[in-house]
Structures are given as C-alpha cells and as structure tokens.
C-alpha cells in the first residue's frame, strides 16, 4: 500500500467528520499560535536590546579606556598599543588623540567649528573605516573630514535671523556648501589666551577625502582628521599639550597629557572576543565590550525564551488532548472497517500508518495555520502596542523598538514541538486500531 493510497484513505476519512477535524485543527492552531506569539515577545525584546546595546558599534569592538596601575589609571601609550596589537585574534587597534580645543575652519566664504582628532589611518582602515570620496592624506598638511562636516559650515555673512535648519532639522539647502570638498583648501584657526588676550593662528590644510557615513544614519561624524605634524604645529603655537586653551577658571587645562584618547580594539571574530577580554583584564587593562555584555544578556534571554516556549508547549499539550480524542473516536467509528480490512489482509502496520498519517496531518495543518496567524498577530502587536503605550502612558518608544519577532528558528521549534506532540498523542489511538479484533469488529456489523 503506497503513500498515495494511504493519503486517499486519510482524506476520505477526514471528510466524513469534517467539523470534528476542523475543531481539532483549530485547537492545535491556537496552541501553536499561542506558543509562537508568547515566545516571539522574548525574541523581539532580546533583539531590541541587542540592537540597543550595540548601537553602531560592531560586535567585535572593545573599548580600551586605560590601564590600571598603583596610582589609579594610566592612558594607553604607544607601548601598550604595540602590546595590544600583538594579541592573538586582535585584528586592529585604532587610537585617536583629540585636540583640546574646537578650531574654526573656513573654506571659501563658509566657516564652522568642529572637533578635530589625530588618528592612525592604517588601523582605522583595518577596523573597517572606508572613504566615501577621495583618498587618504599623503602629506602632513592634508586631511580627511567626516561625512557630516559639510553640514557644519555656513556662509560667513549669515544674517542673524537666518533659518539654518528646516522643520525636519535638515540644513537649509540655500546655506549648504554645494561643491565637493575633496581637493579644497581649508583654513584651520586655533586660538590661545596669552595674558588675557586671545591670539589666533591659522594653518592651511587640503582636504583629500571624506569618510564613509556610519551604518546608523543618526550618528554624526563631522570631525576633521589631522596629522601628527599639524598637531605639533598647533602645540607649538598654544604651548600646551594637545592645544589646550589656558583660562583663568581652568588653570590646569594646560597640563601635559600623554597617551591616546579613544582606543578601540577589534577582534578577528566574535568567538575570540571573550578570550581577548580575559587576557586584557588579566593585564590590568580597563576594557569594555558590548559583546561580553551581550553574553550575560543572551544567557538571561535564552532562559527566558526557553521558559516561554515551555509555557507555550502546554497550550499545544492541551490541544493534543483534542487530537487524542478525535483519533480515538475515529478508530472507534471505523472499527468495523478496520476489521474488514484486516480480514482481507491489511497488515496492522499499514493501519497504524494510516492513523498516524491522519494525526500528523492534523498536527501539520494546525502548525501551518497557527504559524500564519502568529505572524499576523506579531505584526499587529508591533504596530499596535507602541501606539497603545504612547497614548496610554504618553511615552514614546525608541525607534526600531520591536515587541515581537518570529525568527525562523522559532517557527522550526514550534512546528517540531507541535508535530512531536501530535504524533505522540496519535500513537495510542493508532495502536488501538491495530489491536482491533477482526471477529469482534465483523460481528458488530451483523
């Protein structure tokens, strides 16, 4: 007896008790929907939190903020950078020195002030920095600028009441510098307080390239990336470390600083993060990685998800009582048919297969319908819930907030659980079908 014929039997059997089968499928589907929607909240919140923690950082990134020593902590210097770069699994170590004042930059008739850093381009490139336009600087007085630098310079003769930004916070096109920055000469004006008098110093630079915007579109990068030589030039003028401005209320601002400001390590892969982190902590580095924070978050959520799936499974177990009932009734109703088939020569195994096929089919139908409904409910939840929360509590949820998410793994888990449960609940009735006594079954018919 081939599968097609068994299938035919199942179909005609099911047709005979349509409403009963429908109710059973419905109960199973409801169980599956409940399981998926319940667990999807765990999955949704988890991915929202992960996205929140990672922000724009790459998962392989580690922030190295210093090294612990006897008098507290010391910044990272070239010596440590060399050590860090040698660590197994470390892909790149980026480091920046931040200028301790915000210079004014002017280009043609435009000007604006912005942060300025010295960075080590080879390691930045290794860590994934890309240029949107132009090339890296080759000479000392060449610079690259961040992608949002252009939005931070305005016409010099801007009227006081000019509306620089439109309603959406975008720079008004009329005031925007509308030529390519690459190849342009730019003047950097730094200042210093000498005997209560502000002195200015102008350095002429050439822009050779523009950095690729960060993946998260709300992150701004308007920095100017200068070379060590330009920094030396600034320091020579200000006579302070990193060009700090001396003022009366901050007399210590001129103190010597050493080391790098922003040091980030990048692991080759996520798997290596933990080993590197352990190694660095042992060497007294002060490190932070979103990935290792994610680890504890992940384990908490794994437990939570397992718990939700377990609770959801109970719904399917309840539905399985329905399947058990339906199948038991089906076997009882058809016992004389089964007896006749056995008398003619139907192997008990075939009879069992037919009934198992029927209960699996009910389970599969329930799983498919349940999954589809769960998707719909999940979408509605994600659309509706933030609105309800906003109107009820007046609180706006962060952008990209996902309340419910159904990854393929959840569907797989749910369908497998549903099929296992339905097959198990169909086993007993199917076995009963094989045990039907031919003589008793045929006698009943008389």
């Amino acid at each position, binding site marked *: 007896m081939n599968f097609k014929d068994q299938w035919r039997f199942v179909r005609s059997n099911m047709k005979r008790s349509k409403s009963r089968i429908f109710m059973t499928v419905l109960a199973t589907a409801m169980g599956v929907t409940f399981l998926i929607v319940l667990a999807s909240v765990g999955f949704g919140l988890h991915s929202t939190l992960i996205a929140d923690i990672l922000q724009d950082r790459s998962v392989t990134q580690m922030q190295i903020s210093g090294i612990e020593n006897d008098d507290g902590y010391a910044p990272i210097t070239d010596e440590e950078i060399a050590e860090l770069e040698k660590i197994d699994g470390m892909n790149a170590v980026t480091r920046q020195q931040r200028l301790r004042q915000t210079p004014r930059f002017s280009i043609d008739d435009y000007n604006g002030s912005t942060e300025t850093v010295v960075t080590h381009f080879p390691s930045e490139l290794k860590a994934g920095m890309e240029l949107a336009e132009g090339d890296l600087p080759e000479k000392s007085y060449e610079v690259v600028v961040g992608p949002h630098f252009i939005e931070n310079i305005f016409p010099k003769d801007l009227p006081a009441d000019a509306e620089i930004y439109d309603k959406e916070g975008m720079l008004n096109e009329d005031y925007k510098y509308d030529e390519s920055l690459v190849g342009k000469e730019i003047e950097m004006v730094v200042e210093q307080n000498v005997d209560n008098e502000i002195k200015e110093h102008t350095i002429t630079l050439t822009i050779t390239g523009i950095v690729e915007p960060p993946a998260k579109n709300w992150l701004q990068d308007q920095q100017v990336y200068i070379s060590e030589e330009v920094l030396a030039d600034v320091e020579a003028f200000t006579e302070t470390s990193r060009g700090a401005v001396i003022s009366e209320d901050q007399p210590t601002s001129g103190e010597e600083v050493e080391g790098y400001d922003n040091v980030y390590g990048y692991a080759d892969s996520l798997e290596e993060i933990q080993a590197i982190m352990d190694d660095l902590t042992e060497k007294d580095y002060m490190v932070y990685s979103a990935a290792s924070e994610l680890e504890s978050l992940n384990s908490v959520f794994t437990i939570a998800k397992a718990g939700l799936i377990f609770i959801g499974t109970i719904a399917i177990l309840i539905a399985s009582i329905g399947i058990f009932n339906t199948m038991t009734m089906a076997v009882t109703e058809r016992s004389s048919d089964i007896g006749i*088939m056995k*008398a003619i020569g139907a*192997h008990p195994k075939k009879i069992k297969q037919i009934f198992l096929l029927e209960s699996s089919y009910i389970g599969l139908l329930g799983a498919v319908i349940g999954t589809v409904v769960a998707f719909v409910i999940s979408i509605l939840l994600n659309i509706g819930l933030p609105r309800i929360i906003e109107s009820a509590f007046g609180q706006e949820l962060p952008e990209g907030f996902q309340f419910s998410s159904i990854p393929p793994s959840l569907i797989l888990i749910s369908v497998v659980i549903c099929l296992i449960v339905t097959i198990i609940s169909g086993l007993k009735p199917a076995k009963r079908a094989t045990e039907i006594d031919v003589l008793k079954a045929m006698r009943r018919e008389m």
Partner: protein
Amino acid sequence: MIEAKDINHTFLLGKKQNETALQVLTNISFSVAKGDILAITGKSGSGKSALLNIIAGFMKPTSGSVWVKEKNVTNFSEGEFADFRLDNIGFIFQNFQLIPSMTAYENIELPLVLKGLPEKERKERTEQTLEKVGLSNYHQHYPSELSGGQQQRVSIARTLVIEPPIILADEPTGSLDSETEQEVLDLITGLNKDLGITFLMITHDEEVARIASKKIHIHDGEIVKEEVSA
C-alpha cells in the same frame, strides 16, 4: 492445500476469563486437496464458524495446527497472517462485510490497493472482476444501494480480484433467498471448475452442501461424519 491437525479449541468464559471453560472443538483433523470444495455442515452452535476462523487465522486454536499450502500457519503473527491472507486466502461472508463508505468499485479494488499495485493494473482488474460477477453497471453504488445478492456478488468479486488459490466461505448463502442462493452457488462451482479455486464452505443447508466434493459433519465440536461425493 489445507490441513487441520488435531485441533482443539476451548473458550474461556466469564469475568477474567477463568470462570468456565467451554470446549467447542475436539480433535478436529481433516484435509482439503487442491480444487476441492469442502462443505462443513452441522447444527447451529456446533462449532463450524469457530473452525473456519481458526483456519483463517482470525483466532488461534488451543492446541493442534493448521497447514495451508504446506506451511504451518498456526503460529503466524497477525502481520504475517495478514500478508499470507492477502496473497492466498479469499473470504465470502454470510453478511458480506463490505465497507459501507466505499462504492462497489472501491470495495473490490481494496485488496489491490492493500497489495500496492499500480493504479492502471488495479483499474483493469477491478473492472474485469465487476464484469465477471455481472455488476458492470454498479461501479458507483454504495453497499446500501445494492440488494443482498448484489452485495454478496461484490463481496465475491472483492475476493476474486486477487485470484486467491483458496476461498473460505461462512454461510455464503445464509442471507439470500433461494433464487439468489442458486446464482451464488453457480458462481462458486464455476470458479472452482474454471480457476481451480479450492473452497472451504460452511453451511447448515444440505442443498448447498450438495455442490461440495467432500463433506464434513460436525456435532458438538467433533467430526461425526466425513463423506466424499462421487
């Protein structure tokens, strides 16, 4: 073809099946040669059906053995017996035992479906058999839409469709009037002559037993008379 050796059967009656023992068959031994029609006669309650059910494998004898086609089938498992029946033994029941939810055509096709034959061959053989029993126009009729004689012919057709070497029949004409009874008996003798099918048939009717080549008379579970007709 069929051999019963020293069959005894006892039913255990009552709760927990240990109250009383009822001996329904005692030392039954007989044999049926290929191409024979054996009629088992006897009063109601003499144990005829019990004997047939043991030979068919629907129940196990308390002692003794059954041999079919030189094979000891006594200790076959249910599955083994099912497969064996599917290939070798056909049945004609007093009350037809058709599946009510299937049409005449589907009932007849059922053994072929169980055998897993390809659809084309099934169709051919089912239609041929329907014709053989004179029911070509009743493909789509459900058992409830057929007369008793027609139902019995469907039942016989279902047996014939696999061309079994042996057919067991328990009161095949028991629920038919004398005219239809004659039709069915003619069909049986025809099959016996044309296809050489061996029959083992139960009846309490001497008229019916007359078509047999060999007769066994049972009384209170024992063979009291055995005769071979000329």
